[in-house]
C-alpha cells in the first residue's frame, strides 16, 4: 500500500470513529450543561452559606444539621408531601389502570375517550389550576353547586385545612392520562389468546384481570409506581397556584419549601441542601420499590434463579 493511500485509510478510519460521537454531541452537551453541571454545582452549594447577593461562605454540613434539627418547616412540609403521596400514588395507578382497562375494550368511540382522558395531561398547569380554582371556589364553585343540588353543604375546599390537601390530590389526578396511556400500551401488548384461553377454561373476568392482566402489566406498573413517587415529591405548580401552601400550611409541600428557601429567603445553599435531601429520599424510595419488584414484577426475558436451566 502506498503512503498516500495509507494516510487516506487512516483518516477515513478516524472519521468513522468520530461520526457517532458527533451525532450524540447535542445530547451530551445538553447533559453536561443542564443536568450534570447543575447537579454537581448544587451539591457544592449545599455546603455553603450562599445568599443571592453578598459573600458566600463555606460552612460544611451546617445546612444539613440545621434542616434536620432546628427547622420544623422541613419536617412539616415533608409530612405534607408524604401524606399527599400516600393518596396520590395509589390512586394514580389504580385509576389509571381502570381507565386503561375500560379504554382497552373494543367499544365504539374508545379513540375519542382516549383523547379526552389524555387532554388534561397536555393542558398547561396554569390553565388547569384556573379551571380547578373555579371548580373548588367556596361560593361560586361548580363542585359545591352540584353538591348543593344533592342537598350537601360542600366544604370550603381550598380554605379548610382538612380538605385542601385532598383537593390538591384530586386536581393532580386530573393528569393521570399519562399513566393511563402507559398502562394502555402495556395492555395492548398482552396477547389476546391468553384471555381467550382463559375464557374457554371458564376463568371469570375478575380473575383474568387479577391473574393475567396485572402480572403481565407489572413492569409497566412498576414504572408508573416509581414515576408517581417522583411526581408526588416534585408536586409544586398546582399547590403553589391553587392554595399557595395554605391554609395553615396544610398544603405546604416539600418542593414549595425548597422554592421558598431559594427564591423568597434567597438562601441558595440551604435550598440546595434541601434538594439533595429530597433527591436522597426519592432515591431511597425508588430503590426500595425496585428491590421489592423481584417479588411481584414478571419480566418477559427472566430466568428465575435456581430454576432448571437444562431446557
Amino acid at each position, binding site marked *: 500500500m502506498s503512503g498516500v493511500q495509507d494516510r487516506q485509510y487512516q483518516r477515513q478510519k478516524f472519521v468513522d470513529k468520530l461520526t457517532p460521537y458527533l451525532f450524540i454531541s447535542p445530547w451530551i452537551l445538553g447533559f453536561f450543561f443542564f443536568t450534570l453541571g447543575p447537579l454537581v454545582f448544587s451539591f457544592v452549594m449545599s455546603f455553603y452559606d450562599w445568599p443571592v447577593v453578598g459573600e458566600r461562605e463555606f460552612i460544611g454540613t451546617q445546612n444539613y444539621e440545621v434542616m434536620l434539627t432546628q427547622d420544623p418547616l422541613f419536617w412539616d412540609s415533608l409530612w405534607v408531601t408524604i401524606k399527599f403521596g400516600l393518596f396520590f400514588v395509589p390512586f394514580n395507578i389504580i385509576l389509571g389502570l381502570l381507565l386503561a382497562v375500560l379504554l382497552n375494550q373494543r367499544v365504539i368511540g374508545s379513540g375519542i375517550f382516549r383523547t379526552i382522558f389524555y387532554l388534561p395531561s397536555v393542558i398547561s398547569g396554569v390553565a388547569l389550576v384556573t379551571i380547578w380554582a373555579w371548580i373548588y371556589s367556596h361560593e361560586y364553585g361548580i363542585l359545591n353547586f352540584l353538591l348543593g343540588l344533592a342537598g350537601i353543604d360542600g366544604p370550603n375546599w381550598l380554605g379548610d385545612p382538612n380538605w385542601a390537601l385532598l383537593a390538591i390530590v384530586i386536581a393532580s389526578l386530573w393528569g393521570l392520562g399519562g399513566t393511563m396511556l402507559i398502562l394502555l400500551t402495556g395492555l395492548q401488548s398482552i*396477547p389476546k*389468546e391468553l384471555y381467550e384461553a382463559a*375464557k*374457554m*377454561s*371458564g*376463568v*371469570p373476568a375478575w380473575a383474568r384481570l387479577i391473574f393475567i392482566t396485572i402480572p403481565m402489566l407489572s413492569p409497566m406498573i412498576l414504572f408508573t409506581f416509581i414515576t408517581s413517587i417522583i411526581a408526588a415529591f416534585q408536586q409544586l405548580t398546582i399547590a403553589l397556584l391553587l392554595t399557595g401552601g395554605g391554609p395553615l400550611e396544610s398544603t405546604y409541600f416539600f418542593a414549595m419549601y425548597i422554592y421558598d428557601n431559594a427564591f423568597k429567603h434567597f438562601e441558595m445553599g440551604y435550598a440546595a441542601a434541601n434538594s439533595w435531601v429530597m433527591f436522597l429520599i426519592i432515591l431511597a424510595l425508588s430503590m426500595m420499590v425496585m428491590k421489592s419488584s423481584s417479588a411481584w414484577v414478571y419480566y418477559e426475558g427472566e430466568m*428465575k434463579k435456581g430454576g432448571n436451566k437444562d*431446557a
Partner: protein
Amino acid sequence: MAGVKIDGLEKKFGSLRVLKGIDLDIRDGEFVSFLGPSGCGKTTLLRSIAGLEEIDEGQVVLGGQPISKLPPAKRDIAMVFQNYALYPHMNVYKNLSFGLSLNGVPKAQIDERVQNAARILQITELLKRRPKQLSGGQRQRVAIGRAIVRDPKLFLLDEPLSNLDAGLRVTMRVELANLHKRLGVTMIYVTHDQVEAMTLSDRVVVLDQGKVAQFGTPLELFYAPRNLFVASFIGSPKMNFLDVSAKSSGEKELTVSAAGMSGEIKVALEGAAKDVVGPHTLGIRPDNIELVAQDEAHMNGQVLLVERLGTESQVHIKLENGQTFVAIARGTHPAATGDGVYLKFPAQHCHIFNGEGQAYPRELDAETRSLIDRQKSLHGAAQRGEEK
C-alpha cells in the same frame, strides 16, 4: 365425548363474508382436519365452534346440545392455540391447573388431573418451569396438557405444529395420533399442511373461500376429488390441467379430445353422463403421466427442467400450447433439458371437470375402491375397539 353438527353456519367480519354456509356432520370420536389455503376461514370456523367468534347464521350442535348461544366456558370445548397461548408468568403446573382451580375443582383432584396429563405428555419433570424455559415442542405439550386436564367433549387445535421445526413436527404428529387413540375424544385440527391432514385425519374438510369444497377421507380427496379446487390443492406436485372438449360416448363414458392431442381418451365414469358436450378440463397427476414412444403418445413437449430426487425424477415439460406439465418418471430416467418427450395420459387416471369445475365421479379400479372403503370403515372399527 360427542359429535359435532354444523348447519348453515355464516360469519361476516363487517361486510366481508368469511364463512358462507358451512354444513358438517362430525362423528363422535372422529379426528377431522380443516384444510385449506391461508385466509380461507379455517381459524374463523374453529373459533366459531369454540364460541370465540359470534356467528351470524346457523347452528352448532355438540353431542346433541345446541351450543351456538352458549359462552365459550359453557361449551365444554378445549382449544389449543397456534402460538400456544401459555401464561408466561405461571409455571407449567399453574398453567395446567389455573382454569380448574377457578372452577372450584378440589385441590386433590386438580393435582391428580395435572399429574395424569403430565404423565401422558411426558412433561412431569417440567412442571416447575416457566414457559420461557421450555423448547417449542415442550410448550406445545403443555398447551395440549391444558386441554387434557379439562377432559372436554371436543378438542380444537389451530395449526398446533406450525411453529415447530420439520423434524419435531413429524414426531409430534405421531404423538397426536396416539393421543387421539388414547383419549378417544372428538378432535378438530386446523392445518394448511396437507401431509398433516392426510396422515392424521379420519376425514378432512377442504375449505375454499369460506365454503366446504369437500368433506371426505384422505384417499377420497386424493383419488376422487369433487372439484378443481380439491384436485389442485391435494397432492404434491400438483395435478396437471388441460383444456379439452368432452362429449358423452356411452352410458357411463366421456370421450375427450384437445387441440394438439393425437387420438382421444375415453374416460369411464361411475355414474351416467348423458348429453355432455363442450369445453371441459382434464386433470392428471404427475405420477400418472407416462413418458412413452411417439406412437403411443397423446401429446408431445420439450423438457424444461429435470429435478432428480433420487427415487424419482420430476420432469417439467413445456407442451406445444405453451403450458407446463410436471411428470414424475423413475429416478434414473434419462430425460434432459431440451429433449423432446412424448406424454401418455392413461384413461383410468384422468379426472374430468365440467365448466363449473365440478368433477364427474370416475370409475375407480378395484384396489383404490377397496382402499377408500377400508379407510371409511376404519374409524367405525376403532370406535368398536376392533382396531388393535
